[in-house]
Structures are given as structure tokens and as C-alpha cells.
């Protein structure tokens, strides 16, 4: 009995599973098969892609890059696209990012929108200029214990044109922490005058897919793919005084802007508040001091929120918002540029508006 019983048991379970598997496979080939879908971009270009996938990823495969900081998880709300054909109602995952005005314009989050039929979209022309670059890691340098400076040499195409303050997306290939390649946004720290390479400042996020890759796997000489440039974070042309605020790796775009100002001899009054916890979180202080000499009206104000005793810190202390309150005399004729974590940005915007800087003159890059 045991052997026969065993075989019957196995046979029955296998039989049931096989039938179910076949049914599911047939369903996958019919119900879940959306065929080929045409995306019409700006009424001039048609691209054909496989249906059923999100718009953002499908455009990316066609080398059209919509800016996105989170890589399509629906958590940054950047990948907005104007849709001119009917694609159904807003999804609950889109709504937190869409304002009422954007609803009127039928602006959608392209990472949430699954392609099921032909679609027509409008994107800004400059996104056509966004390109993919093959690069090679030229150097890796520790700026602090948790921030690395990564210099990428451009291979193909060999030059990049961007505005100081803009960012690129770095493609992390598949590796042990991630089954598919993902994209993460990093601001250029090098000035636009350096066209054949780009410098990034990357801060270690514990268990972050990209930062773990950069800290534990990336070596000099490795190939890496980036795309860009993106972003509205660049110095506006005006005669106003400038307040820069950054913390940690938020240094990058500000550094790029400052070098750009130096090269273009822009001598507007500028103050750079750099927030850190203690001395071990400070970096590039010498370079900033050098810029103070090169730019006559520029001041670098590092502020520590929790200086250690052995730091012997003589400079500013306190949260960046407290330092701002002490330094900002009046917000008249001032504009502000902020880069850092959402918490720091929100607090700083509050402190700035309280000191009389209107919200429309506060520009920022939020990196969650």
C-alpha cells in the first residue's frame, strides 16, 4: 500500500497543480496581454511599446527620460506628464501629488499610469534633450565617514551640457539588493564648465539600494550609466542677495553653483549656511574658505547642531533654523536656494518666510 498510496497522492497533487498552472498561463497570455501600444508624444513622434507596463518605464526604454527621483515607486511625485488622450480616472496612488489645477490639465504621474491602450502625451521639449551617458568611475573619495565623492568620466557621449544646480539620474544595475535596475537622482557637484566628467556627492543611506551599491560595490574603472540633466534648481538671474542652505550631500548643487558664479564673476551678496551635526560631518570647508576669497561678497557659515566636546567648535551652533533667525536681518531683496532632506527644507522654508523672504523666491531640491 505505501508506495501505491504515495504515487497516487503525488499524482493527484501534481495533476491538480498542472491543470491550474496551464489555466493561469493561458490567462497570462490572453487576459494579461495588452499587445502593442502606441505613445504619441507632442503630436509629432510615435513610439510603439509593449502594453501593460507603466508609462515612465516604457518611455525610459525608448530613451525618453522623465525626471523621477524615486525610480517609479510613486513616492516622489516628480514624473508628471500631461496626457491628452483619455486614460481613465486618477488612481489613489496619484492623488497625493496632483493639485486641483493639474487635474484640470489632466497631469498624471507617469510611473503609476499603466499602458493599456494608445495614449497621447505632452512633455517639455527639453526632455527630448535629456540623454543617456555611458561613464566610467574615475575616482572615489571619502568626504566624511558617510559621504563619498564620486567622479564619473563621460565615455559616450563624451560631453554633457547642464546648468549649475541640476541633477542627473544614476542607474544602479541588478545586484544582490535589487532584482531590477533602479534609478536614483544626484545633483552635479562639478561646475558646468567641466564637460567631460561629472562629480556627485553620495551619502550612505543604511540599506539604500543605490548608496549600498556605491559604497560597497563600486570600484574605480567600473562602467556606469547616467541620464540627465534635469531640474529647475539653478541660480536665477537677478540682483538680489542670495541665501544658500544645505546639509550633508546637499552641498553638491550649491558647490556647482558657487564655482559657476566664480567663473562667471557674479559678485552678488551670498551667504551659504551649511548644517551639520558635529565636526565629523563637515567637509570641503577649505574649498569653501577658498571661495570666500575668490568671491568677495560670499560668506560660508557652517553651523553645528550637536558639536562634540573634542570638536572645540568656535563657530555657529544650533539648528539651521535658529542660525537663520540670528543671521537674516531682513528678507528684503533676497532669494534662497535650499538642498537637503524634506524635514530640513520644510523647517528652513518656514524660517525664511518668517524672516520676510517670499515663498516664490525660495527654490529647493528635496531629496527624500
Amino acid at each position, binding site marked *: 500500500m505505501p508506495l501505491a498510496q504515495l504515487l*497516487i497522492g503525488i499524482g*493527484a497533487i501534481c*495533476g*491538480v497543480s498542472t491543470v*491550474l498552472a496551464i489555466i493561469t498561463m493561458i*490567462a497570462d497570455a490572453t*487576459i494579461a496581454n495588452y499587445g502593442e501600444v502606441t505613445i504619441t508624444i507632442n503630436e509629432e513622434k510615435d513610439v510603439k511599446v509593449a502594453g501593460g507596463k507603466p508609462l515612465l518605464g516604457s518611455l525610459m526604454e525608448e530613451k525618453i527620460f522623465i525626471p523621477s527621483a524615486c525610480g517609479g515607486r510613486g513616492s516622489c511625485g516628480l514624473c508628471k506628464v500631461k496626457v491628452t488622450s483619455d486614460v481613465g480616472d486618477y*488612481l489613489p496612488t496619484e492623488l497625493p501629488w496632483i493639485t486641483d489645477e493639474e487635474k484640470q490639465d489632466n497631469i498624471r504621474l507617469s510611473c503609476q499610469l*499603466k499602458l493599456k491602450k494608445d495614449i497621447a502625451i505632452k512633455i517639455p521639449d527639453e526632455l527630448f534633450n535629456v540623454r543617456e551617458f555611458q561613464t566610467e568611475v574615475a575616482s572615489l573619495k571619502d568626504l566624511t565617514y558617510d559621504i563619498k565623492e564620486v567622479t564619473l568620466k563621460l565615455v559616450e557621449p563624451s560631453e554633457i551640457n547642464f546648468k549649475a544646480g541640476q541633477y542627473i539620474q544614476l542607474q544602479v544595475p541588478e545586484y544582490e539588493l535589487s532584482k531590477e535596475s533602479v534609478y536614483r537622482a544626484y545633483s552635479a557637484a562639478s561646475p558646468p564648465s567641466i564637460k567631460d566628467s561629472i562629480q556627485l556627492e553620495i551619502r550612505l543611506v543604511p540599506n539604500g539600494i543605490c548608496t549600498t551599491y556605491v559604497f560597497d560595490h563600486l570600484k574605480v574603472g567600473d562602467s556606469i550609466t547616467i541620464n540627465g540633466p534635469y531640474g529647475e534648481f539653478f541660480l536665477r538671474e537677478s540682483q538680489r542677495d542670495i541665501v544658500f542652505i544645505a546639509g550633508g550631500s546637499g552641498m553638491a548643487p550649491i558647490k556647482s553653483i558657487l564655482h559657476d558664479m566664480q567663473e562667471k564673476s557674479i559678485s552678488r551678496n551670498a551667504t551659504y549656511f551649511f548644517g551639520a551635526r558635529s565636526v565629523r560631518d563637515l567637509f570641503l570647508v577649505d574649498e569653501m574658505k577658498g571661495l570666500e576669497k575668490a568671491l568677495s561678497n560670499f560668506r560660508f557659515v557652517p553651523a553645528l547642531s550637536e558639536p562634540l566636546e573634542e570638536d572645540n567648535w568656535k563657530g555657529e551652533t544650533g539648528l539651521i533654523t535658529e542660525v537663520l533667525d540670528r543671521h537674516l536681518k531682513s528678507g528684503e531683496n533676497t532669494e534662497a536656494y535650499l538642498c537637503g532632506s524634506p524635514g530640513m527644507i520644510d523647517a528652513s522654508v518656514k524660517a525664511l518666510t518668517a524672516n520676510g523672504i517670499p515663498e516664490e523666491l525660495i527654490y529647493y531640491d528635496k531629496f527624500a
Partner: protein
Amino acid sequence: MNQGIAFYAIFFAAIFTNNILLTNYLGMCSFLAVSREVKTSQGLGMAVTFVLAVTSVLNWLAYRYILLPLDLVYLRYIVFIVIIAAFVQLLEMIIERVSDQLYSSLGIFLPLITVNCAILGVSLFMVIRNYTLINSFFYGLGSGIGWALAIISMAGIRQKMAKSRVPKGLAGAGITLIIAGLMALAFMGFSGMIKIT
């Protein structure tokens, strides 16, 4: 076979007197998690009803024509779960095709129907109680409607409650469980009207 009870008695019993959720407390996980909005809970309720009605028939057929004749009754958990899983997979594909709205609002709870214990519970109860095919179908359908009824009423109450002041320590799962208990008490008012075992 238990021929004693008419299918309509089983059907109504499954909805009211023997509501799978409120008398057996099966399927609580999604009941607590997806009962914030009436609209979403309607979607989930419909999905669960559909899965229950169909899987009770499929599982009955598998039990009657495969497991019983081959003397493999002790494999019923594996077979039932595999059938439920495959069916939910199909349902997921269908919902994704038909409604992005429903698909994205049900989110993770759609695949979790696979392990909704109400669904395995119905299949096991119907086997234990020796129901006929017709009775099983109506038992599954009734249980599904009963489950949907319970989650939709809960969502209605919770939507109203969003504006009321719940003591801090009870907010969230605590008050929801208390309400579920009160609803169960209310449903006890139906008990004794029909007896099914």
C-alpha cells in the same frame, strides 16, 4: 450527503445567523485593514464573494471527484489552498485588466485574499458538513455576501467615525475591534432563526 437543509436556508444562514466573519471571526485581517472607505471595501467585498462562490464549487468538485475516490482526504488542505491561490491569481489579472482604480486601491489585499482564512474556512466547513454541490455553492456565495455586508457596514461606521473624537488609546485597531464585537452582538439577534451545522 446532508440533504436535510434547503439551499436557501443555508444561503440566508451564511449571510445572517452564521456570518463567517462575525460568528466565526474568520477573515479579520483584511476586514480590519481595508474597512476605511466604503468604496474600497465594496470592491474587496465583491472580490471575496466571487472567490468564495467559485472556489467552494471548485473545491467541492476536487474533493468529491479526486480526493474522496482516491482516498486522499488528508491532502485536502494542500489541494484547497492551491486551487484558491490559482483562482485569486486569475482574478487579479482580470481586475487589473478591467479596473485600474479597483486594482490600485485593493493593492496588496488582492493577493492576500489567497490566505483569507474565511475562504479556506468555507471550503473546510462545507466538507465537514457534507454539503451537496448546490448547497456548497450557496454556502460559499452566502458567506461571501455576509462577509461583504460586514466589511461594508464596518467601513460605513468608520467613515462616519473619522469625524468623531475617539479616545487616543482606542484609535485605530482598538475601536475597530470593539465595533466588530458590537456588530457581532447585533448579528446574534438573528441566531436561532435557522440552524445549520
